[in-house]
């Protein structure tokens, strides 16, 4: 029965990685931006949640929504003030800029928070599990993470299929020049896309720091980069 447990755990962990990676995919899909700093931004969101937990209380309901809003604003600002300036026909300038940003975030976090492993306390959520009989156990937190990932993906799908903003994202991804002729300000739409990407990334970072494998900045930042 060991293998069933492993399969289930692996699948559910995939939900967490999907949450962390979808922002990367959004940024690449819509504005052809390869965001090297994406893993670091995920960890930044995790530390943002940790800091908010100190200010509010570790069990506060507001930690996740606040992290999402803060990251969305950060994403909008980053795109508007930094990434938009380097987007163009050449893929290299955005790579260099996000690589630099990656180093800045990583070392900034290391300086402020040290390299200690952290975890956002969530009571017994981390250890609780459902028993499916015959020695098959499913952790409650991975299950919740997976469900949230499914929900986020369904919402994103609906946004892209049925809303004016989603339509504009798709059109801008298809043809960034022609979309200007429709009256679309690319700089604003790209910034909104990055804001959305960072909002989803914040959810990923939040569930990342809830689980037992909390981010020690030095090592895990790199491994997050590799994994997604």
């Amino acid at each position, binding site marked *: 029965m060991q293998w069933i447990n492993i399969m289930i755990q692996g699948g559910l962990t995939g939900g967490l990685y999907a949450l962390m990676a979808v922002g990367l995919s959004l940024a690449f899909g819509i504005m052809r931006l390869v965001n090297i700093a994406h893993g670091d931004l995920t960890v930044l969101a995790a530390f943002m949640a940790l800091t908010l937990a100190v200010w509010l209380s570790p069990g506060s309901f507001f930690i996740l929504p606040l992290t999402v809003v803060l990251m969305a604003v950060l994403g909008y600002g980053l795109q508007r003030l930094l990434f938009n300036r380097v987007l163009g026909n050449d893929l290299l300038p955005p790579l260099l800029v996000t690589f630099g940003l990656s180093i800045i975030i990583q070392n900034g976090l290391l300086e402020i928070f040290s390299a200690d492993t952290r975890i956002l306390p969530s009571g017994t959520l981390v250890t609780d599990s459902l028993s499916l009989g015959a020695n098959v156990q499913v952790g409650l937190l991975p299950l919740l993470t997976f469900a949230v990932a499914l929900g986020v993906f369904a919402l994103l799908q609906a946004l892209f299929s049925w809303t004016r903003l989603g339509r504009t994202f798709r059109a801008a991804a298809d043809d960034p020049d022609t979309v200007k002729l*429709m009256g679309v300000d690319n700089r604003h739409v790209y910034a909104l896309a990055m804001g959305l990407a960072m909002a989803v990334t914040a959810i990923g970072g939040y569930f990342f720091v809830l689980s037992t494998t909390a981010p020690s900045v030095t090592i895990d930042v790199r491994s997050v980069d590799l994994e997604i």
Partner: protein
Amino acid sequence: MTLFETKQLTAFYGDFQALYGIDVHLSEGEALAIIGANGAGKTTFLKTLCGMIAGRRRDQVYFKGSAISHQPAHAITALGIAMIPEGRKLFPSLNVEENLLMGAYVRRPGPWNLEQVYKLFPILKTFRSRPSTLLSGGQQQMVAIGRALMSNPSVLLCDEISLGLAPVVVRDVYEAIPRIRAQGVSLILVEQDIHQALAVSDRMVCLCEGRVVLQGAANAYSADQIANAYFGVKT
């Protein structure tokens, strides 16, 4: 009343100069044909008007009396200047109706909406949920025209709407022009198909190597005079 005016309009691609001081004006409700051979600067002219090529100076293009040549393309569209780009440039991952709705992004009030566009091109209603890539060239051109109309423009810039279409399809597409004009839209038509363009226009301007070589009423010149100007023959 003059709606659109260029004063000594110049355009550059890097160090290469494509337009050398073009003076053209367009009155309200008028249709102007811009003709000329390949490389005469027709598309460059339109791209400068709609902001796709940034103007170097702010005092070269005037719309309703104010200078617009320094404005970005999306702001110019919002003013009521819609461009039908050469080669249609539909959004491949959007279906027909979504393509049309993209045209309405600026939310300008006016006579054009989905219903009116479907009335103008009934075939598009049939194919409304098809990907735009699965339409024929003529139908794609209709989507491109409809998309531009959805912004309820005061001026419609048409860049080679007959390009790559069979003659019978060109006729279908051009049949829509008088009906579009009837709604009060002014037109600038860039064409290589001189006959089609002059038939639906009030005035014409002939460009050759970035300069105006002939202009006047659409029926003011003989075919020979136009041909000479078109090919840059000095008479």
